[in-house]
């Protein structure tokens, strides 16, 4: 793991977010700032949390609180493709477990793990608000619904084409 440092682009993006809030409410931008950090590095290290805290002028522990409260923020490196499989009630009833099993068969990894080549991570998540299309999963920013083994094959095969 190399130390993370905010790039000038990320800093300017965070500063843009800060413009949305009153000058004495800089902490309001903390979630957006963490999102920008995560987009840059795929995960958020303690070092960069300290940087965000300094940039926003708030205590580092405050940033840490927010970063650990929301499960979408990653605290260790994840793969190029983060596959979030919903296992909440609707998806569960519609076979989320089978989806996870199939993903394991295809990639060799289970929830919370990353493939050895660092390409794919799988994460078990709670409801993503797409119950109508259960079972579903999210790959990076994209939703995939009504999953079947075939459609998962397609999705996995098509991953690198998105780049």
């Amino acid at each position, binding site marked *: 793991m190399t130390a993370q440092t905010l790039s000038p682009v990320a800093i300017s993006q965070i500063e843009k977010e800060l413009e949305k809030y009153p000058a004495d409410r800089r902490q309001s931008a903390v979630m957006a700032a963490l999102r920008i950090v995560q987009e840059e590095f795929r995960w958020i290290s303690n070092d960069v949390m*300290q940087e965000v805290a300094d940039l926003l002028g708030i*205590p580092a*522990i405050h940033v*840490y*609180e927010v970063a650990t409260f*929301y*499960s979408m923020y990653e605290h260790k490196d994840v793969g190029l493709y983060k596959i979030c499989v919903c296992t909440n009630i609707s998806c569960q009833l519609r076979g989320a477990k089978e989806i996870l099993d199939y993903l394991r068969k295809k990639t060799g990894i289970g929830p919370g793990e990353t493939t050895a080549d660092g390409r794919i991570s799988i994460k078990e998540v709670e409801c993503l608000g797409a119950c109508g299309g259960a079972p579903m999963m999210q790959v990076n920013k994209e939703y995939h619904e009504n999953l079947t083994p075939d459609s998962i094959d397609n999705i996995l095969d098509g991953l690198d084409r998105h780049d």
Partner: protein
Amino acid sequence: MVSIEINGQKIEAEAGSMLIRAADAAGIYIPRFCYHDKLSIAANCRMCLVEVENAPKPLPACATPITDGMKVETRSELARAAQKSTMEFLLINHPLDCPICDQGGECELQDLAVGYGKDVSRFSEGKRVVFDKNLGSLISTDMTRCIQCTRCVRFGQEIAGIMELGMVNRGEHSEIMTFMGQAVCSEMSGNVIDLCPVGALTSKPFRFKARSWEMQDHDGIAVHDTVGSNVTVQTLRGEVLRVLPRENEDINQEWLSDRDRFSYTAYKSEQRLTTPMLKINGEWKEADWQTALDNVSSKLKKIVDEYGADSIGALASPTATLEEFSLLAKLMRGLGSQNMDYRLRQQDFRADGAMSAPLLGDSIVSLECAKTVLLIGSNIRKEQPVLATRLRKAARKGASISAINSTKFDFAFPLQVNISVSPSSLVATLARLAVIVAAKKKVPTSGTVEDIAESCPANKELEGLADSLIEAGNDGQIIVGSMAQMDGNYSLLVALATIIGNISEVKFGRLEEGNAVAAWQASFLPFADRGTVGKNATEMLNPALKACLLFNIEPSLDCIAGNSALDALRETGMLIHIGCYRSEEIEELAHVMLPLASVFESDGTHVNCEGNMQSWKAAVHPQGEARPGWKILRVLANYLDLDGFNYTSSETVRDEASPLISTTKRTASMDVYAPVLVEQNRLACISHLPLYRIDPFTRRSQPLQQTLDNPPAAAGMHPDTLASMGIDDGITVELANGGGKIDISVYASTSIPLNCILLPTALQETAALGNANWLEVKSRA
């Protein structure tokens, strides 16, 4: 005001205020954990659920605003069921380790579990375990006991002003911790121990020492700052085991600084002096009090007869009691000497005649309502921690607080203007501010003030500051702090601050450390007597006196001259040390050592910055043969055949002390002194006194010495200054001034003005430097 009904009892309460407050005021107890009347409302423990008429379910009393005609039941079936269920939830993950928990006996959870808990837990699953955190040398943690009330988090955010603890993770995984496991460094951190309703945060020095019900409580007063915080001293079998804050809304509320809370740990140090000692042929020999006092009195008399009374003097610690200051002053004057001083860290005494007692100028409570506050030469957070929390409250209410210092300090409140200039420019900046204020008020200033102001051009910051001072008027407050007192131009800073205060009609306050106000009240000052003016703290050490009485001080650390003070004392024919501790330097220099009782072992009186006299009684017997200062001085005076020393109690001494003139003298005089400036090509020395180096007591408190407020000695410089001299951050350099030289590592900090060195005093490592306002740096290749 609206009327509501709680448990059938009619109560008048303010509409919109919270239910729990009205219930508390009416004496109706509602159980709670997260609610605290000095903290914001979190409503996360749910223990205070009550039944409110027409509400579909129980409501938390801490977060339910009062409306007219509200009918509340706190002990109805529904309310009790809700409270009991909450208790059951809280106990699910709480360990059953009360027998080995320090909080046992003073635990809110334990107490309420008796009233609301079940006899047997229905929870048969595994309890969650939370790993303990290392928060430093003061706070001990057992985090499995935590019930996530977040009082400690809110205290840091709201009262102390630095958020160090936070609740991380979510739901069942949430836990209290610091960022990356850092130790807490707030100077008020100990208060979270009192706030914690369970045994998750407890006192580390007190760990496993005693049970709360075994100990006896004694009312005491803390002496390390000018606040005079009320404390409870808890003892067991004649030993002080803990110090807690005692509630006093007008003074410390229910808070206490760590310095006042934990310094007791030094009172049983191995270095305590426990018997009178005489140096005979260079060897220290134990003696009884009679022999020792006989020896002291006969030698003192001889020296007075031979060299005159002006050849003797007394130097006392600013943390001495009013009684001790009184009798020491009376004793010295009885012998005919005016040489007495407690201002050991001051170097500029030019304003002695014009100076008034170090008072705030108003009550401590009024600080909260101040509209504008100007801090001059003050790192108030570390000098007077409790006052800083009041200022923080003022800031939260919208007060504009500004600072003019020679270093940018990290205050726990936002600053309107934060000026940090070199000590030489400090006077010019103040003079410029005085000129601006005078111009705005159309009052003439003297030519001298304008001359001094010349080197500091007017700027927007000063203009804005002047406007806000004038606008605040009597709701404004100027505070000249302890850091200014160590400055070479102290008299000038005080004079200029007084002028600014007078013209803008803002209240003027000057704060010193410890019990300094008591020294003024006791006239323990070389100029307090009409007629002859005696020698001040600096003059007494240069040239050396024939006989000198040291009252609970360690000269190399307490005197600004550092080790050069020792050179003078080495030549003193008769050096009498009355003190709590013995140390190498005292053993080398003194001729007699008389053991002094500590504040816990002696009656005493503290006078705070409001002029408020507060007395306390001894909590324990003195160690060994040590005796209270007032008794030692009374008997010594009897041995010296001085009249008027027949006191029978500490109260008779206290009552004799003349009343303090409590209003600060407002001289309209425009007289100022010529500033002492550092030569252009030299580096200016900014001395600062670390929080836990203030007196022999705190210096021996191991838990305080291990905190982050006591870092290793290092000299701070601006990175540009370091770069211009070709010195790297972190390396060891040689610092020298006229008085001596030391090797010390340097660090870079942009808080320090250019061409200045920020140097901690009262440290062994820096004592070898003499008293000068400049320093030379030599790189050690």
